[in-house]
């Protein structure tokens, strides 16, 4: 019990540190006034501009000190108020923008993980059972190649091959399409981020499987006359999954990062592509909100993975 409490406390501390870092970076390194008003912010001689400047300062609490601003922001944030975006007319609330776009990113990441898991497990089983043979070596080389390709390169190649040359996959994502076609449109983007991690998962699982297969209880299973596939699937797989599950969980954060590129190339309006757009527009409430959401999910997922580990391995259960 104490263990759980400790970890949760650490996670909260972590989130605070992350938020301070982010908030500080944006406000210290960037110029919020400039972001809001554009060049007008520097125009201190024009009384009209000064008027706008002061209004903005009041509106966004810019005349208060940094720690106070931070405190105000935190209290807003945890209540779900992420402020308003500067750039669009009418200044729609950031939370609206995010709630509209976040589900798309989540679907993308989930799809990518599903794909990676469904591919890597059989792949690992096959290569582990044929360890050292030609097919295994070829697979290792393939995995190496896959990992050496950056996300954006894979995206471009996939787009070229499947959308352009072969015409199998749609080129763009249309938000208004029905769910089934939207999911279909997400296939290539999901593959883009899912393929490299599938290679990583496969490599890890294969190593663990090979270790497990050398254990005595596998030999005993053989003496019971069980078939090769039954031994692999029923006996060898489960004890080998511990590192696998941990890595899958921890990788979710990396996948969120990868979605940034994927969404940009395939033009999916999720929070990844929004982050890039906002950064290029200096729209920092959005940037701040997205970074916090991503970092928070990262921290929370890591925490959950930690806890899940204690549940999965019956030997660790107390």
């Amino acid at each position, binding site marked *: 019990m104490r263990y759980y409490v400790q970890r949760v406390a650490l996670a909260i501390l972590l989130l605070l540190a992350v938020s301070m870092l982010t908030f500080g970076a944006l406000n210290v390194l960037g110029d919020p006034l400039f972001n809001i008003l554009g060049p007008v912010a520097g125009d201190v001689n024009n009384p009209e501009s000064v008027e706008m400047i002061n209004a903005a300062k009041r509106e966004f609490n810019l005349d208060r000190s940094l720690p106070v601003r931070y405190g105000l922001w935190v209290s807003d944030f945890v209540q779900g108020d992420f402020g308003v975006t500067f750039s669009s007319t009418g200044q729609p609330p950031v939370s609206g923008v995010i709630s509209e776009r976040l589900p798309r990113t989540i679907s993308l990441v989930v799809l990518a993980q599903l794909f990676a898991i469904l591919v890597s497990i059989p792949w690992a089983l096959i290569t582990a059972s044929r360890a050292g043979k030609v097919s295994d070596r070829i697979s290792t080389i393939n995995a190496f*190649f896959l990992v050496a*390709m950056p996300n954006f390169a894979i995206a471009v190649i996939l787009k*070229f091959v499947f959308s352009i040359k072969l015409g199998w996959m749609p080129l763009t994502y249309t938000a208004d399409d029905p769910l089934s076609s939207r999911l279909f449109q997400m296939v290539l983007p999901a593959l883009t981020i899912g393929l490299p991690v599938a290679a990583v998962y496969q490599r890890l699982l294969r190593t663990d499987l090979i270790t497990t297969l050398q254990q005595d209880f596998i030999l005993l299973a053989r003496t019971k006359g069980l078939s090769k596939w039954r031994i692999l699937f029923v006996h060898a797989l489960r004890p080998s999954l511990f590192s696998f599950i941990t890595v899958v969980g921890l990788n979710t954060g990396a996948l*969120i990062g990868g979605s940034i590129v994927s969404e940009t190339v395939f033009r999916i309006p999720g929070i990844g592509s929004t982050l890039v757009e906002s950064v290029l527009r200096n729209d920092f409430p959005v940037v701040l909100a997205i970074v916090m959401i*991503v*970092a928070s999910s990262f921290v929370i997922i890591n925490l959950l993975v930690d806890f899940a580990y204690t549940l999965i391995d019956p030997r660790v259960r107390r």
Partner: protein
Amino acid sequence: MSTNPNPATPTNSDETIVKKKLGVGFWLCVAWLGLMAFIALFTPLLPLKSPTQNFLDTTNGRPPYSPSWKHWFGTDKDARDVFARTLHGARISLAVGFAAISAGFLVGGTVGLISGYFKGWIDRVSSFVFIVLLSFPSLVLAILLTSLIERSLLTISLVLGLLSIAPVGRLARAATLQFADREFVLAARQIGATNRRIIIKEILPNVAIPMSSLALLGMAVAVVAEGGLSFLGLSVEKGITWGGLIQLGSESSKTLEEAPWIAFFPILMLFLTVLSLNFAGDRVRNYFDVKETTL
């Protein structure tokens, strides 16, 4: 392969140590990397076409021109020579990669060594900082930071360097912890060696071994990270980078369809470079791993 094919059978024969070689593949990678380094350093001096000049050739129709003897990698929409641009792209991409990992190693390595050796509060603080840095998916943090600063070669390298501090530091710390309690360190302390001397003479050489493979792997990551940033338009201002070239070559489906070479040659160069770094790093790790596991 183990000398004991049946793990449950007791054998008398000594465990033979399989001879570890770096292998042909390793040297091929080193050759490629050497070539890239050469290109990165000496491109302006080489007899290439200019990367910014428009080689409009009305006899050939409208650009982009496909690969030919005149333009080995073809040209882009503005009739700029892709071959020259790709080679120029190597400069920034590799320079940033190298500088970033060097900075990361310098800072991260030092912090890791010190935390692992002295432990105590230094260790707790630095570990916490590492964890905070690692709480962001790296691309997100990179994007955040590069959006706020003036983007020059130096600053981008520093940002990526900052990102590599945590992983490097963690490894350095773990490796140092392994060695800090060993007898040879205690022995050195007994004869009155200062901490500084112990760290430099006893621990550093041992830690350098696992770190060397991390250097190669880390550089691969840095190159990819820079590629990602430049693809998104967040790398060095007005610089020619592989990521940037790829982005230009793929930003419209039309371009990609009609002139795939614009994007694909930079992709190829990037891929081969990252592959070489990964493979070489892996080989180095395998080569040194034997000693580690038998210790």
